[in-house]
């Protein structure tokens, strides 16, 4: 009968081999981890920001207090134009206007007020419904945008928008800003300063520029956000509310 029991000597050398293997393996793993992981982790951290899906946990919106909106003031419009590189080209009929100030006069009382008008970032946007290619779309956080790469320039969204919020680019553009890529033959509108929102700067150029505090940007889903508190206290009116589009832009003082 063969004795299979290992000799004490063999046992020792096996143990040493095991230790050695474990040591080498551990070293290799450590070296790999030390060289590869930081890259992986760092890349993951970098990529997470750009790749992170927008969620519906937030809904960005604006609250406009028409009682604070001053007559003759155009600061929000100027700020928007500067922020996105919009310029006067062929006159008001064809130039893009992402935001405009509207003067309202009550037909019976004569009461006058002013308010800024822009894309109302509807929950149920008619522009998105009618777009044949899906270029008009709504992000999960409520921002309505145009994908300039698949917009064919049919302008059906402009026909469908109840707020006249969209502009068609009627000419070749030069000197565009990196934050607001635009293109001849496509449609565009207020982006709710999506580039700022995505960069973590939760505000819009118009809201920042309004020295009267008439424009407040915020998260409509966060009950503690200023916009939600103000809406809770004084309410907010939706333009053309009868269309039941649940706009992301609300007005006070109408």
């Amino acid at each position, binding site marked *: 009968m063969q004795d299979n029991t290992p000799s004490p000597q063999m046992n020792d050398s096996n143990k040493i081999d095991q230790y050695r293997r474990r040591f080498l393996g551990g070293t290799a793993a450590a070296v790999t981890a030390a060289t590869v992981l930081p890259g992986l982790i760092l890349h993951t951290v970098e990529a997470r920001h750009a790749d992170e899906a927008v969620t519906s946990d937030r809904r960005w919106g604006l609250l406009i207090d028409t009682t604070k909106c001053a007559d003759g003031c155009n600061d929000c419009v100027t700020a928007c134009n500067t922020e996105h590189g919009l310029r006067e080209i062929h006159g008001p009929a064809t130039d893009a206007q992402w935001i405009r100030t509207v003067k309202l006069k009550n037909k019976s009382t004569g009461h006058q007020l002013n308010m800024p008008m822009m894309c109302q970032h509807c929950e149920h946007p008619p522009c998105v419904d*009618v777009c044949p290619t*899906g270029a008009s779309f709504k992000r999960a956080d409520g921002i309505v945008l145009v994908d300039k790469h698949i917009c064919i320039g049919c302008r059906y969204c402009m026909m469908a928008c109840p707020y006249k919020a969209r502009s068609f680019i009627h000419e070749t553009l030069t000197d565009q800003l990196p934050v607001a890529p635009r293109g001849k033959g496509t449609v565009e509108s207020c982006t709710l300063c999506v580039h700022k929102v995505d960069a973590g700067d939760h505000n819009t150029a118009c809201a920042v520029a309004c020295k009267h505090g008439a424009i407040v940007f915020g998260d409509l889903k966060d009950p503690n956000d200023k916009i939600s508190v103000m809406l809770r206290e004084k309410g907010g009116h939706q333009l053309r509310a009868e269309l039941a589009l649940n706009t992301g832009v609300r007005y006070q003082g109408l």
Partner: protein
Amino acid sequence: MKKLHYTSIHGYSKPSLALLGLLLFFVLLGFISFLQMEHEGHYITGMNNQIIWGLPHVFAIFLIVAASGALNVASIASVFNQKMYKPLAKLSAVLALALLAGGLLVLLLDLGRPDRLIIAITHYNFKSVFAWNIILYTGFFGIVGIYLWTMLDWQVEKYTKIAGTAAFIWRLILTTGTGSIFGFLVARQAYDAAIMAPMFVIMSFSFGLAVYLVILLTTYRMTDRELGDIVVNRLKNLLGVFVAAVMYFSLVYHVTNLYATEHHGIERYILVDGGIYTQMYWIGQMLLGSIVPLILIYAPKFANNRNAIMAASLLVILGGLASLYVILIGGQSFPMTLVPGYEASSSFFDGVVASYTPSKWEFMLGMGGVAIAILIVFASMKLFRLLPVSLSDEVAQTLKS
């Protein structure tokens, strides 16, 4: 029964060469206009951020609607078994395809990015009425193409009825879709009405038959072929019914709107003080496009008068363009109400009637589409045996019996 003898049109007469030259000239103008608009951008046109769709769309929608209606004659022959219409069915299908091609071309070349046609074909938002229409138009080419094939090739002739029925159903859906482009627009007071869909269907019957009559009468006159009163009178009486039906739908649309106070503004604008649009409605659509043609069609004084029928058909076409101009541009020019009870004003033309002056580029593009459509019919007549040599009363009698 006398056998019908179909031939293509041989040779070129001087008038036909002149027509060909004219058509090519307009196609060239259309092409130049497309290049110009594409290169410069739409600021060179009369269209802007207020009048979003302009004259090219009036032409395009007229051609598309008329395309569907041009198929009337073929449908009556194949679906409703009216034998007298059978010799006219091939031209009917060719004209339908040609008009649709012309209309779609105008629509396509007016896009801000016509180079992205492939995107329009590959990216679909199925909630969009426009996307439905892209499918409807493509399908129309396919179905009417097959239908035409069954009429031209005796080996597949037995499928004519089934193909004709499919085409008939498809064109009704197609015009419903075209009308719904406006009917589904909740934003604007002039649109957002379910009646738009059936109104466009009946408009297609009228405009399409008018175009068909113009082409038929012109062809028989230019080629010295015999065309009897029996066939022509049937067609013109049918046109009369359709013209009256369009008037009825227009009346119902406006009366319904007039009942609702919220629409009083737009109705007053279109019917009373809308300037050019009011004139186009009453003088263009109603008087010249409807009442005068009805007199020319039904007054005993004009019985068997080809010139009167030709004039009536041309006036129906003119009235059709006028009615689409009023719907499209008149409808867009009326300001939207932002806040009820308030007058609005802004740098973006809120609260004011938007002005629109069509540019030569838009007219050239639209006419280019019309010319392409006629050119396709012209070429088809040269290539295929579309029309019988004679459609005299004697032939018609034998067909009837």
